[in-house]
């Protein structure tokens, strides 16, 4: 079984987003980078499936050269090989991103590696476009299961559960398939020192996809208006308890 998992490098923003002066991006000079929680789970899922069923795992990202950091993180968690689609410059829209991924998948296929499973996070943490997995599936003429918090791969089939208002909806499809997962599907490991050492020796292949131009074009970013809340401090330590209880009463929750 060959599995490809796709991730996106995003800043680890913490409690506040500061925009660049031209409002085209986020000031990242004091920030670390990561991938979205859904994607951390996609990586973990790929490793778990490989460990139980055998085969090869690949991690792919489209991003700047520095995104090899996110590939190395995935390699440290046990993914076998990396693919970097180098995309310097402005943002790629979901359609462009999907096209570049599809071309990379087809190139791998021509080299003799075809994927049984393509794993994605359900949506990226930053742009939250919620569509790259579906676009890749359509272009490769594969079925797509999305929003999964449970996945079983067996007998050439993928069976997954998605949260609904009333519980879990269960879907099934044949492999090869595209699957977009959500956090909660597993509990990702942290990379071990040994994993980090091993990752240094693993291969990252770099490709430079051609841009076709965005159809969804970001013009500018903006911080949403502040809610203008004024916090009322109720005290320090256990001595604040009587005041807290008064507030609970005034809010009619007691």
């Amino acid at each position: 079984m060959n599995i490809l998992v796709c991730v996106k490098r995003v800043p680890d923003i913490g409690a506040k987003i500061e925009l660049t002066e031209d409002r085209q991006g986020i000031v990242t000079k004091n920030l670390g980078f990561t991938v979205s929680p859904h994607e951390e789970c996609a990586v973990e899922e790929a490793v778990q499936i490989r460990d139980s069923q055998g085969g090869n795992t690949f991690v792919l990202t489209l991003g700047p050269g520095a995104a090899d950091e996110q590939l190395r993180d995935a390699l440290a968690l046990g993914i076998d090989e990396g693919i970097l689609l180098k995309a310097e410059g402005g943002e790629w829209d979901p359609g462009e991103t999907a096209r570049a991924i599809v071309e990379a998948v087809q190139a791998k296929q021509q080299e003799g590696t075809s994927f049984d499973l393509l794993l994605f996070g359900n949506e990226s943490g930053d742009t939250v476009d919620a569509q790259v997995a579906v676009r890749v599936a359509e272009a490769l003429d594969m079925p797509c299961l999305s929003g999964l918090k449970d996945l079983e791969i067996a007998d050439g089939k993928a069976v997954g559960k998605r949260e609904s208002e009333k519980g879990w909806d269960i879907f099934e499809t044949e492999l090869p398939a595209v699957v977009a997962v959500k956090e909660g599907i597993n509990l990702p490991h942290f990379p071990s020192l040994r994993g980090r050492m091993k990752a240094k020796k693993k291969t990252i292949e770099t490709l430079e996809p051609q841009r076709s131009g965005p159809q969804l074009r970001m013009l500018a970013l903006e911080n949403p208006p502040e809610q203008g809340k004024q916090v009322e401090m109720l005290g320090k330590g256990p001595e604040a308890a009587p005041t807290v209880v008064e507030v609970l009463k005034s809010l009619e929750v007691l």
Partner: protein
Amino acid sequence: MILGLIEHDLGKLNEFSLQMLSFARQAAEQLGLPLSLAVIGENGGDAVEQIKAYGPTSLHWIRHERLQDYAPEGWAASLLQVIRAKEPHLVLAGSTDKGNEVMAHVAARAGLPMAANCLQIEQDDPFRITRQRWGGSLLEHAEVQGEPKLLTVAQYAFEAAEPLQGGATEVETFTPSFEDRDFRVRFLGREETASEGVTLKNAPVVVGGGRGVGSEEGYSVLEELAEQLGGVVGGSRVATNNGWRPHADQIGSTGNRIAPELYIACGISGAIQHLVGCKGAKRIMVINKDPEAPFFSKADYGVIGDLHEVIPAIVEEIKQRG
């Protein structure tokens, strides 16, 4: 025209579709276009009956013997055929799992862009929108090319639409045609989770714990406070990643979005990941030993102190007052 996709669960209207309908009504007025709605599936009869009263200009019930259960590509193929037949300028759905999935399939098949989590149409030509990034912690102004425009509407940004007085639209049946590949994803069934009354989604009070709780056992004081207030306990991503709480209890952009009367956040610093999950709360009380915790600036009430001392004192005070 504007075409809105109304989601339903066995005929029950989806609340995010009704929020989308509020956006759609505004857009119809802004662009001077009639508003059409579409309901997909043989089991959508109840939804069709209910949505009539919302008074769209036209209402399409997409029916076919293969449209029994939800099938992402079956729904997308249906919607795309209605789009080709009716030629709307704008197609809308709620930004839900199904809404985004169906619209993404339509977009891919039609070679069009799709903008998720939209808040506003800024102007028509060129077509510009405002949409959410980072779960609403950042706004993006963007241009959407191609025709029609495919948008999904951000959750909780609009009140649910109300029915119109005297609204009663004629229902037009639309019969799509399919290829087998439209049903490659099969719905196998549903596992209903036992609803135990108060949950994170409907609790009037939620007590949340983060890094400051320190352990799985540390949550017992939070449980006790929640019990006194008729509420439930949730956790930050730190709590679920450490295995202190199950992921189902997570409050955050990749967990639950909560909207209680009061949210009491204990030992949580206030990362955006978490704030996205609790911004629907009417009031927020933050208990944190770090006076510099960014969460205080988003709170209505604050207590500086160690939650392991403050919460037992609050519980004790409540008990004393009977």
